[in-house]
């Protein structure tokens, strides 16, 4: 299919959607038109990505008359961009469809216009980020994406903590933007900002400047991807946003951090020293561990998922760091394997996290609650959501034959392959990273058990959960799309390996063969994983066990009774395992990390302290990372702004007196600059 036509369809649909949400009269028609446009645009993005990936060609366009001060708009979709475009289209499609059912309650409200329009703009800007081919275009659409997502985060006035979350997000994302701008300025050396020119110019940079560019870019894209310690906005902003937006932010937007890093470091910069990779690898391990530890401890449903995003992006960055490390040591094949593992995990994470955030939206929509402590028993009331969530949770927990396992396996094996190289730094670093990945995988499984068990099983813990209703059909269909992808990518991960290998070789490195028939294989460690075989064995073993039980028990009398509850007469939700209790053992093991605080209040009868009326326990985790890393900065900003406030005396004479002072200072500065 013609790429230009698809591109026009994509932008046209998003533009139409945004225009329709402003122009049409308020109501259901507006919602449907705007979101169907978003879905069409996403589908076109998906088709464009697929078509470019399939054809192996690149698609370019230039609109010099637009954004002239920034050097015109230059667009180019190559295999790397197409891959991320595919991810955006693929997550945007179900998110748009989901929103048709999810945002019904906004019909007739003024803010529905803004929400739908921003949603279209957000999608369009994300798609354009993957197409940008010069610094000006990239920075522009990057900023549009940041602003659109910021406005979407604060769009729900019922979320009390949305303004704070938005502030964190805005500050972090703009700090990232500044770092990116600085990186581009150093990289361009006063010349053109076109990517092909930058690619050639970067070889002329001094190693120190290149290192600075790398660190700035790692910080900029790390803040978007939620790398520790720049992750603080993520667990705040994702829960505050409406669920279809959090699905997009978590499954598409954070991945653009990965895209940016791959584009600018692998594509534009020449191979750097090994410490680049070591730095990313170390941060990746810390990020993955931090993310998974908090995702096990949190009780806010969407925050659990947001921390899980942090964890998975950590795993992706482990792959990227490994690739950079290998590139630094000159092992090209291994580097490209690391890159393939990272990209595969990006894709897989996008699929299951999109599914899980939409399912979380469905749960929140059905129960009007966000805390896991308020759920329970939803498998009876929302069976479709529960089954799809189970699929997503299994993928998240890395259970074969679902897709989370495939890429975690590949990351693990590639690290093993790298650890056999002889460089002493690798011999120390990679086994540590392996241990980290193993711990992360185990804890992610624990988190998955808790996520599904506490939310969907047992008895409902609140009236909201009691009266929950299954979501509308379109929402279920929307959730089913990524669920199918989770299964397909899990059983046949090899179907995307050739494309990913081509991306890696397009970035200038020969790719090693990573698939053997239907099995994933890593030649250097001679290990292979045949997911379809695992699925076949698991399913046939289960079926055989079921048949065997039937056959053996055929002639025995069967008595159906209630589940054994230890003879309890009153079975209430109060005796259930809670999300916090489930995480308690882990909180004790990792006390030093979590720094739990607890406060017990015992209310006793005035006559005797032995007659207890009530006991209240309030357990919380100290947000020490924020305090240690950002506390001084926040306090300094407060102090400065307090000082500034003293100038706001309200006296017009004082303000007038300040004017000549400012003029004088400008004179001095201009003099000094000249």
């Amino acid at each position, binding site marked *: 299919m013609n790429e230009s036509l698809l591109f026009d369809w994509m932008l046209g649909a998003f533009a139409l959607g945004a225009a329709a949400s402003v122009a049409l009269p308020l109501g259901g028609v507006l919602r449907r038109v705007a979101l169907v446009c978003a879905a069409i645009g996403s589908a076109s993005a998906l088709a464009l990505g697929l078509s470019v990936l399939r054809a192996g060609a690149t698609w370019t366009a230039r609109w010099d008359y637009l954004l002239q001060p920034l050097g015109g708009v230059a667009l180019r979709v190559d295999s790397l961009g197409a891959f991320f475009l595919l991810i955006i289209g693929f997550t945007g499609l179900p998110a748009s469809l989901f929103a048709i059912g999810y945002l019904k309650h906004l019909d007739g409200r003024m803010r529905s216009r803004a929400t739908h329009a921003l949603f279209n703009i957000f999608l369009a800007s994300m798609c354009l980020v993957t197409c940008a081919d010069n610094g000006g275009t990239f920075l522009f659409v990057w900023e549009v994406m940041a602003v659109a997502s910021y406005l979407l985060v604060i769009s729900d006035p019922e979320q009390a903590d949305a303004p704070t979350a938005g502030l964190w997000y805005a500050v972090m994302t703009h700090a990232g933007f500044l770092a990116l701008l600085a990186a581009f300025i150093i990289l361009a050396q006063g010349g053109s900002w076109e990517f092909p020119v930058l690619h050639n110019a970067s070889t002329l940079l001094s190693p120190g400047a290149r290192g600075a560019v790398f660190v700035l870019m790692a910080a900029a894209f790390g803040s978007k991807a939620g790398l520790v310690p720049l992750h603080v906005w993520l667990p705040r902003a994702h829960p505050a946003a409406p669920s279809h937006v959090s699905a997009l932010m978590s499954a598409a937007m954070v991945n653009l951090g990965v895209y940016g890093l791959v584009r600018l470091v692998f594509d534009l910069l020449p191979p750097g020293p090994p410490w680049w990779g070591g730095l990313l690898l170390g941060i990746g391990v810390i990020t993955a561990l931090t993310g998974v530890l908090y995702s096990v401890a949190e009780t806010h449903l969407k925050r659990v998922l947001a921390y899980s995003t942090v964890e998975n992006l950590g795993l992706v960055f482990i792959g990227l760091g490994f690739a950079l490390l290998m590139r630094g040591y000159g092992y090209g094949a291994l580097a490209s394997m690391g890159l393939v593992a990272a990209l595969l995990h990006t894709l897989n994470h996008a699929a299951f996290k999109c599914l899980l955030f939409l399912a979380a939206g469905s749960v929140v929509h059905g129960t009007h609650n966000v805390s896991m402590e308020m759920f329970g028993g939803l498998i009876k009331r929302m069976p479709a959501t529960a089954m799809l969530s189970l699929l997503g949770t299994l993928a998240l927990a890395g259970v074969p034959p679902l897709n989370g396992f495939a890429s975690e396996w590949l990351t693990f094996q590639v690290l093993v392959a790298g650890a056999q190289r002889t460089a002493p730094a690798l011999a120390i670093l990679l086994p540590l990273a392996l241990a980290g990945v193993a711990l992360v995988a185990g804890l992610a499984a624990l988190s998955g058990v808790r996520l599904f068990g506490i939310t969907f099983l047992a008895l409902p813990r609140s009236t909201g959960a009691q009266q929950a209703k299954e979501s509308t059909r379109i929402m279920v269909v929307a959730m089913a799309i990524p669920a199918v992808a989770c299964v397909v990518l899990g059983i046949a991960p090899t179907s995307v390996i050739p494309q990913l290998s081509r991306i890696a070789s397009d970035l200038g490195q020969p790719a090693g063969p990573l698939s053997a028939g239907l099995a994933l294989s890593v030649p250097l460690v001679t290990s292979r994983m045949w997911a379809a075989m695992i699925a076949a064995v698991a399913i046939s073993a289960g079926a055989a066990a079921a048949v065997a039980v039937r056959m053996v028990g055929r002639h025995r*009398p069967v*008595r159906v*009774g209630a589940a*054994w*509850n230890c*003879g*309890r*007469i009153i079975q209430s939700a109060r005796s259930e395992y809670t999300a916090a209790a489930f995480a308690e053992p882990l909180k004790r093991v990792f006390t030093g990390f979590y720094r739990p605080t607890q406060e017990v209040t015992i209310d006793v009868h005035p006559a005797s302290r032995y007659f207890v009326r009530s006991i209240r326990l309030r357990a919380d985790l100290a947000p020490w990372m924020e305090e240690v890393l950002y506390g001084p900065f926040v306090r300094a900003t407060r102090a400065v702004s307090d000082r500034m406030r003293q100038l706001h005396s309200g006296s017009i004479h004082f303000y007038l007196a300040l004017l000549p002072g400012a003029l004088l200072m400008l004179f001095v500065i201009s003099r000094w600059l000249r």
Partner: protein
Amino acid sequence: MKLFHKIRRTGIVTEPLSVDGTDGVALAREIDARARSVFGRALAIREVDAGSCNGCEVEIAGLSGPVYDMERFGLHFVASPRHADMLLVTGPVTRNMAVPLRMTYDATPDPKLVVAVGDCARTCGVFAGSYAVAGPVDSIIPVDVTVAGCPPEPTQILQGILAAIGRFELGGARRA
């Protein structure tokens, strides 16, 4: 050294297991053999305290204590009625325990045996007539064998268990 010498010389000191001429070990062996022929496996017992003074529990605990150690012959106590072949019920059934006892009985898979241990389980003992007592065990669930005594000795409990298995062999599968 003197201590070690004494330990070596004295050997293991324990009480004889036979009480009133009944050999506990032989009894346990017989129970195990017959339970295996009836249930096809070692006997799994679920103990239910339906309101006992815990005198009977002390004796039952004696069965798995170092002197009797009946687990070596296959008699073992399990943690859930789902795993049990036999319920060992003690005490007068209190009002609070009447429903749980019934639920326990229902939760035990067929075929199953019920042995009511102690005078209280049989007749409510000294607690008869109390406002807190619902009645003897057989007023709540069907009982196969009752073991008299306050409390009965472990050997007597073993005899009761054996009698229950004997009844079962005669009567075939119990009604549910």
